[in-house]
């Protein structure tokens, strides 16, 4: 909770990401994994053929791209974090 507060400040529950997803480097068959809100702990590794929950699936191709480090999934938008730390709102 402390990490979340540090990362997202006083943001309400509504404005917290639904999920954070990143490329998985374990190798085949795993390709992406979800992270906790502090983006430090891996929650679940997903295999290539394994579907992500519907609301995260749209972020899969971006998470797999080598140019991006993580993708934050919100109810109404995606925030893609570049390798250099800059953010892209979609």
């Amino acid at each position: 909770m402390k990490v979340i507060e540090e990362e997202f400040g006083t943001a309400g529950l509504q404005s917290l990401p639904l999920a954070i997803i990143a490329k998985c480097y374990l190798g085949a068959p795993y390709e992406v994994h979800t992270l906790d809100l502090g983006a430090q702990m891996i929650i679940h590794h997903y295999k290539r053929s394994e579907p992500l929950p519907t609301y995260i699936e749209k972020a899969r191709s971006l998470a797999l791209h080598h140019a991006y480090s993580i993708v934050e999934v919100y109810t109404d938008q995606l925030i893609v974090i570049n390798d250099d730390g800059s953010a892209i709102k979609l």
Partner: protein
Amino acid sequence: MSNQAISFTQLAAIQTTLVSINNNVKVAHKEIGVLQQNQDNFENELARLYAEFSDFVANDTRHKALQLAETRVGNFRQELQIRFGYYADVRKMATGILQGADTGIVSDTSLQLTTEEVMIKAPGYWLAPALIVIAGWLRNDTAVTEKALAEAIRRNDYKTTLFFMLIMRRLDRREASLKWLERYFLHQSPHALNREFIVILEGITLGIFSPASRQLMDNYIKEWMAALTNGDQFVEEQKRQWRLFFLAMSGRHHPAYPLLEKHADNWSLLREGEQNAASYELLQTHFAEIFKSSDHYSSVAEQLDILLNKLVTEFDDEELPLREQLRLNECIIEEDGNVAVARVKADAEKNIFQEQVDFLQLLTNAAFNPELAGVNRATQALAVATSQSWITEEFDTFVAINRQSVPLEINLSIDGFKCQTRGGENEQELLVTQELYYDNLRASRLRALDFPYMEIITAIVVAGGGIWALVNHQPLVCCILSIVAVLICWNSIDSHGKKKKKIVEDIAGQRQKASEVLRGCLAEATHYRHNYAQKDEHATGLRNFLTSLQASEYAGSSRDTSRTILTN
């Protein structure tokens, strides 16, 4: 119930009828096959004709649009010449008078007569009294100079102010030039600048202003940039226009993957993805070109003459509607008659033709089309470098949206067999699955094929008749009926066998063809991913290039100082 015996003649007639029906059914089957073949051929031919006709209509439309645009360009240029042609003569006089004064070979009387004639012939035009000011000033006629100056300012305050600021700089009267510049900036709002403000930017990149003037401009520009980039409104508007610009660069590449086009259910997304990705390289070349070339002028006087010429020729608002129309038609010619692409391109440049724009828009105009905005390449580079933060942001968004929209899986549908691949890496697995699909298809078709029970029952009945004839001591009838029964039985079983064989052969043919198509699709999928990745890589290159831009590197240093003094 009547016990009516079937006579030999009747049995013979039944047999003849059955054989005849059988033959008719065979003929009908054959004819249906031929009809099916004809229909397939007809459909293929129709599809080919439709494609050819569509191509013809598209080419014809483009050709006509191109011809129309060429005619219109001629007409608009002619109209500009007719309506504003005389202005061109007046404009030439501005630098002509200055160069005449430089050399001292034009008499004051001649200058007076010529400028006064211009005043009469160009009513309402701001430059006419401005020229009288110069002529009056050269012959020390204070009264006329002041009156003419008041008139020029009344007709167009800002252009007159800029005009005299540049003239004072040309005559090396720096104090006076600075005063004119201060006067100009005092009246400007960063939210509504006139188009001619671009001349100031042009002056900055050319380094023609004195250090004091440059300092004044830098202060104003920094203040304006801070004010305009503080909220989202103005930057968002520029981003929107850059998005249009990026989109206008897409759609020029036509990916050629004939099998994927035919068999991939999500082909439109794949095509759009590669089209957009192809624009990254075009954009990279476009931006690299801006920063590669630079215009070279020999002296400050020459540069100032060019600026003066631009100020008096390119920023007269009454010509704007015609110039906007002219530009649209020029875009149609540039795009070889493709009106849709030309319109997107012209829309992206639309703001260049607005009479008043905010400072950020002014930068965007200079960055989009330097010729129309009236600037050189160096100013275009300065405008791009100054706008780089929101250009990069919008480019990042454009690229990320595209990367997201390109499907991870290519959904193939070949002859009813549906499968997925990313880049053809699962070929063996899919070929095995396809084999299974055809095995199942063959089994289900064979199951659906009815065994000829009716014919066998008929044969049994006829054979029963034969036994009845034998019991009644009619061996000949028995013999004939037995033969008929055997014939019916053999014919129906043989026909059934042939149908089974045909199904097996058909499926084998389909399987062979579909397997080739699947291999082709997978090969194309591999090429697609490879080509897309190559094109996509240009996005990283362009991003690195854009983020490395620094506006200070592209603002020319003042020609009046050869050293930089660092102060704490």
